[in-house]
Each structure stands twice: as C-alpha cells, then as structure tokens.
C-alpha cells in the first residue's frame, strides 16, 4: 500500500514539475512589466531564456532561520546560494545558530511578530506559538509552488493545527533500540529480538559480566517513552487522542510496573546509579562508550551520535522492535523538524519557492541530503537514495521505525510542563526509581499531571 502511495505521489510530482516548467516558459500577464524594471540591467543574454522572459516571481529579500551544527549550516548555506542563482532577484538573508538558547530567541521574535520569513521549526512550536494559526502561514495557500504531494497525509496531518497546514515536515523520527553487539558477544548471547530475550539478558549480564553491566540504559524520559510504546503494544490505542488520555489508572499502573520490573531484573540501572555516573547524557556516558551499558532506546535520528561515541572494538547495531510486548505494533513517530513560513512574510510565494527548492527539487535536496534526517519528501528521498547520500545506519533505523510504529503522537506529549526536568515525567519516573512513590501514587501523579496539561 505504502509503496503504491509513494509511486502515485511521485507520478504526480513529475506531472507537477512538468506543468511548472511549462508555466514558467510561457510568460504570464502580470509578471513581465512590473518586475523587469527592478532587476539589474546586467546582460540578459547570459541568463537563460526561461528566467528572463517568464519570471513568475517578484524580486525580493527573504529572511531564513535555522539551528543546527556545522555540517547543517554549510549544506544549507550552499543550498540557499544555489537557490539564489536559480532565481536571480531573490536574495536570502540567513540567520543560524546552535540549539542552545535558540528557542528562547525564536519565541521572543514570534511573540513580537519580528520572526524571519522562513523558519526551521520544532514540531511543538506549531501548537505552542500558533494554536490559533496566527503565527504561521497556511501552506495550502502556496500549494502551487510548494509541492505538497510529496508528503503522505499522515505526516501533513501532524503539521495541521487549527485546520491550517502550518509547516511542512522535513523528516519523521521515532524511538528504536540500539545494541552494542560486542558486549552481548562477551556475555555469550545474541542481541535481544524480543522482550523475553531482553529480560534474560539482564540475568545473564549480571551473572557473567557482573553487577555493573546492563543490557539497556534508560533515563527518565526514555522510560516514559518506552512505557508508552509498551502500553500501545499491549492495548492497541494511542496514548492521547482528541485531547483525552486514553489509558486508565490500572493500565498505567501496568506500564509503570513494566518499567519497575526492568530495573528489578537487572535490565536497566536505577536512576540513582545513572546520575551517579555523572554524564550529561548517554552519548557522553563512559559506560555507554566502553560497552558496560549495552543498549539504548533512542531517536533514529541520533543513531550517528551514539555510534560515533563508542570506543574502538565496540559494535553498534540497530535493534528490532519486540513482537512480544503485546499484540499490537505500538509506538509512535513524530515530525522531527519542519519548515514554516511566518504569517508576517511579505513574499509568501517566493518563500514557498525556497522551501520547495530545499525540500523537493533535485538540486536542493542533493545539497541538503540527510542534514535534517532522512528526508520525508518522496522526491527528495528517492533522489538521495539514488545518489547514495544517506547515512546507512540512520537510514536503516529510520526505515525500521517508520515501518513499525503505527500511532500518531499528541503534540502535548512533549509540552514542557510534562517533559522538562521539573515536569511530571521526570518526577514520576525518578520518584518510582528512588522508591519515593509506589506504583499507585506514581500512576495517580502521572494521570493528574497529564490531564492538567491537556486541560490547559
């Protein structure tokens, strides 16, 4: 089914692309006169005839913002330059930085209506900044230049808030197990293919390798997500739907029990032990690097990070989802990054052309490759695959996640009141691990905290 859909989408894309060039080569009424005067009087002969005679866009300056690391900056700057070359007259001013503090700065700008025209956005910003659709443009308005047919409906639905398509997703991501095969080899067992394997590995690790070795390491938030994956597998319903928590107190108690058993069965270290390791995050934890902790449950997009953290002699493998966690394919995927056009943008059409160039067109996607995860756009994906531009591990992880998970994620799942270090997830999971809460209290607190957030 899925493939069929993709083929259909690609077919459509080809038609679209064809129609666009056609549109471009035939001069439309309004464009010619109004803009030729403005464009610089350079030698028109050198420019391709398509652009010269049939410029169906206005000269303008767009502002464009994103965060990320060095390779993403470089690729994006290069792609933007290519865009400027392709559409002379459109100038793009970039602003970019590291994630740290970026959200504060963007929030301040969106709140004061001074944000750049085109922005890389986090998925939860859509609901946080624009619950009524006032911060971001409805992209259906610029469908003629931004090819939305490249995206499957489910992912577009995740970016639809207040009935408007407020952003176009760059990639999807979900959680998956990664194993360090070297440690499992040392213990004389294969990497877990099922929950039963994992529980058994806990016992074997303790017996053969010693108390310090664990087959899986989970922080507070990891525990929360794994619990949701577990519950969705067991009960076959999404965690939250229509702003309602779908699980009862008893069901959640089962989920928490599952997490507690993992700790008791020496599958995963206690939170106290983990904090005592004194690492900022798992990829900086020496016990992950040297194989003492032999597994993690992480985003597919961070596979590269955890892989490269491993010392020589360790072996990183992408795990399988467990068939025996329940009778359903539980778990969720979410939009990892998206692009949005600000409502304040003066040239939405040209902004959409920029997005289309970066996300769908061959030239742009070749440069951008998998800088923002495995591209979701069908055209971009096939282009990157054909040219071998994807990181193999990340592509494998992403493929497995998208094939397995079946539930959408409620945007409020990630709201700060729940997810931040002073939020309810941390409190419940660490309280349970520290023995401050019993299962019942923990479940009550969790339900209460989530309902409070949903009611907001």
């Amino acid at each position, binding site marked *: 089914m899925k493939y069929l859909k993709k083929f259909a989408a690609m077919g459509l894309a080809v038609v679209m692309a064809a129609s666009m060039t056609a549109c471009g080569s035939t001069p439309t009424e309004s464009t010619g006169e109004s803009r030729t005067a403005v464009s610089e009087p350079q030698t028109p002969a050198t420019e391709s005839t398509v652009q010269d005679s049939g410029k169906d866009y206005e000269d303008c300056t767009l502002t464009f913002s994103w965060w990320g*690391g060095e390779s993403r900056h470089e690729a994006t700057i290069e792609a933007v330059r290519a865009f400027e070359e392709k559409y002379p007259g459109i100038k793009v001013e*970039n602003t970019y930085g*590291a994630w740290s503090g970026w959200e504060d700065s963007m929030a*301040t700008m969106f709140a004061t209506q*001074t944000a750049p025209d085109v922005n890389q956005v986090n998925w939860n910003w859509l609901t946080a900044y624009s619950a009524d659709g006032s911060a971001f443009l409805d992209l259906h308005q610029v469908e003629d230049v931004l090819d939305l047919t490249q995206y499957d409906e489910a992912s577009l639905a995740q970016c639809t808030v207040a009935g408007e398509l407020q952003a176009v997703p760059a990639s999807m991501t979900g959680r998956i197990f990664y194993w360090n095969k070297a440690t499992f080899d040392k213990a004389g067992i294969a990497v877990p293919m099922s929950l039963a394997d994992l529980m058994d590995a806990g016992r074997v690790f303790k017996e053969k390798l010693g108390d310090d070795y664990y087959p899986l390491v989970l922080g507070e938030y990891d525990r929360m997500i794994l619990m949701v994956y577990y519950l969705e597998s067991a009960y076959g319903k999404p965690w939250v739907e229509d702003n309602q928590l779908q699980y009862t107190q008893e069901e959640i108690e089962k989920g928490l029990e599952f997490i507690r058993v993992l700790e008791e069965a020496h599958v995963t270290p206690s939170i106290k032990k983990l904090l005592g390791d004194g690492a900022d995050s798992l990829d900086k934890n020496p016990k992950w690097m040297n194989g003492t902790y032999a597994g993690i449950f992480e985003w597919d997009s961070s596979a590269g990070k955890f892989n*490269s953290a491993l010392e020589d002699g360790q072996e990183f493998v992408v795990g399988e989802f467990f068939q025996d966690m329940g009778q359903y394919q539980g778990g969720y995927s979410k939009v990892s990054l998206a692009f949005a056009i600000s409502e304040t943008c003066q040239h939405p059409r040209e902004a959409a052309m920029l997005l289309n160039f970066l996300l769908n067109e061959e030239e742009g996607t070749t440069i951008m490759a998998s800088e923002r995860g495995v591209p979701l756009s069908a055209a971009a994906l096939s282009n990157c695959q054909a040219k071998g531009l994807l990181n193999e591990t990340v592509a494998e992880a992403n493929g497995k996640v998208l094939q397995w998970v079946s539930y959408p994620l409620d945007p409020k799942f990630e709201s700060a009141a729940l997810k931040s270090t002073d939020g309810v997830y941390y409190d419940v999971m660490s309280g349970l691990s520290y023995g401050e809460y019993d299962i019942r209290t923990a479940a009550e607190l969790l339900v209460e905290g989530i309902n409070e957030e949903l009611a907001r």
Partner: protein
Amino acid sequence: MEKTRGKRLSGRARRRLSVVLRYAVLISVGVVMVYPLLWMAGATFKENSEIFSGINFIPKNPTLSGYQNAMKDYGGDINIWKSMLNTYSYVIPKVVFTLFSATITAYGFSRFKFFGRNFLFAVLMSTLFLPQVVLNVPQFILFTKLGWVDSRLYLPLIVPTLFATDTYFVFMLIQFMRNVPRELEEAAKIDGCNVVQTLVKVVAPMLMSALVSCALFQFMWSSNDYMGPLLYVKTPANYPAAIFVKLSMDADTGFEWNRVLATSLISIIPSLVVFFLAQDQFVDGIAAGGVKG
C-alpha cells in the same frame, strides 16, 4: 622586617616555615583552580571519543583536528577571528561607557544630598534583583520599536551602558567612594577645584583599583554574554565569539567536542591576557594615583 632580636634562629626558621606553608597552600589551591583550564587545553588535542573518558589532561593520540576545524569559515560570513573582532567592537565601548557613566552616577549618589536621593537609591538597588529572564521580552519589544535589533553597531548592547544601567558597578563604586575620606575633597575645594575637577583629579585616582575591577568585570562578562547577542544580533557576519563558539553544536547529531573546546579556548585568551595585565593595578592601587597619605 629585621626586628627579630632575641630568638633570631627560631624566628628565621619560623619565617621560612610560614613561607613554605603559604606556598603550599597557594600551589595546592592553585592546582584545583587551574586544572579545568589545563584539561580543556589538553582536550582540544584529544580525539572526540577520548574527551569524556576521564579527567587526565594528556591526550593519548594528539591531534590538531580540533584546531583545524576551529579555523573553518561559514560560507565566508564568519570565522573565529572575525567573531572575536566583533566581540571586542562592542565590548570595548561598553567598558569605556560603563566606567564613565557608573563613576558619575556613583559620585552623585555618594557625595550629594538632593531631593529624592534615598528613594532613587532604593530604585537603583532594586534594579539588581529582578531576574533577567522576565525582562527579556519587554526589553526586546522596546528595542524592536526603536529599530535597534540586528543593528550593525550593536546598539541594544552598547547604548544602555551610556546610562549606567549596570547597577552592579554603580553600587560597587559607591561603596569604594564611601571609603575615600572627604577631607581630600574639602582640601581640593579650598584649592579652587570645582566638582568635576574634584572628581577627576581627586576621587577617580583614589578609586583606581576599583575602576580597574569594574573595567575587568565588564570586559569579561560582556565577552561571555551569550543571550544578549543571541537576541539582538541576527546577521551571522556580525556574530560575536560567544555565539560562534556554539555554532558547530548540534544536540541531535552530536558534535566535535575538540573543536568546540578549541574555539572556546581561543576565545577566552584575551580575557586571560587582560586579567594578567590589569592585575598590576590592584597591586599598586592607591600608589598609582599618587595621593597616598
């Protein structure tokens, strides 16, 4: 110093012991203080995977890749040197303006009685206490209205210092001024100095060591400030070092620690040098002003 008469030998031994003790304390505390910098310097030559494996600062397989990458240029927009130049192009005006405005304000508060002084002093002090986080948004609105956001001249960062908005320094100078005996000023007045001359010729020299500390702190804090430039500087070509250092960091895909540490290390060198040079002023203090006694 040579006034130990009776028990000369034991006195000398005691003095020697006390010197040894002092150095022992100085060195052992010194190691604790310097170690992070040593580790950081060592880590810039390490491979990324080695950085978190321990607290030994000597790299196993030294590499220069951290430094090579630190020299990278982002599309010709910005590099480490340019960003440092940017930093000091607003830090230095900030330091100068702060010294002037804070001295003047402190002088006004500590030496004159005027209507509403106590109330205004309370207002001044209270501006120390409200956390910056909640002021960010209203301040941003204000600077947006003034059209100063992303100004090439870093107006939102510099202009407020013209008006002694860094209360910390005003309060510091007030406290130091209150320790300067008034007699000197009375004498200057009798000699025919007006208030401005008194401030410049008598009070300021007495405050030299305090002024140097102010300059030093403003220099270092402004160079380190991250949130201010992040909010008000949007064009990459104008980014200061504090932002440049973080440019290569990506929480999603991980990043090159040796490079981040190398850029941080390069960017704090001016602060280290400035401190090393400025500290003579603490030593000489009043003597430099030549008003001693």
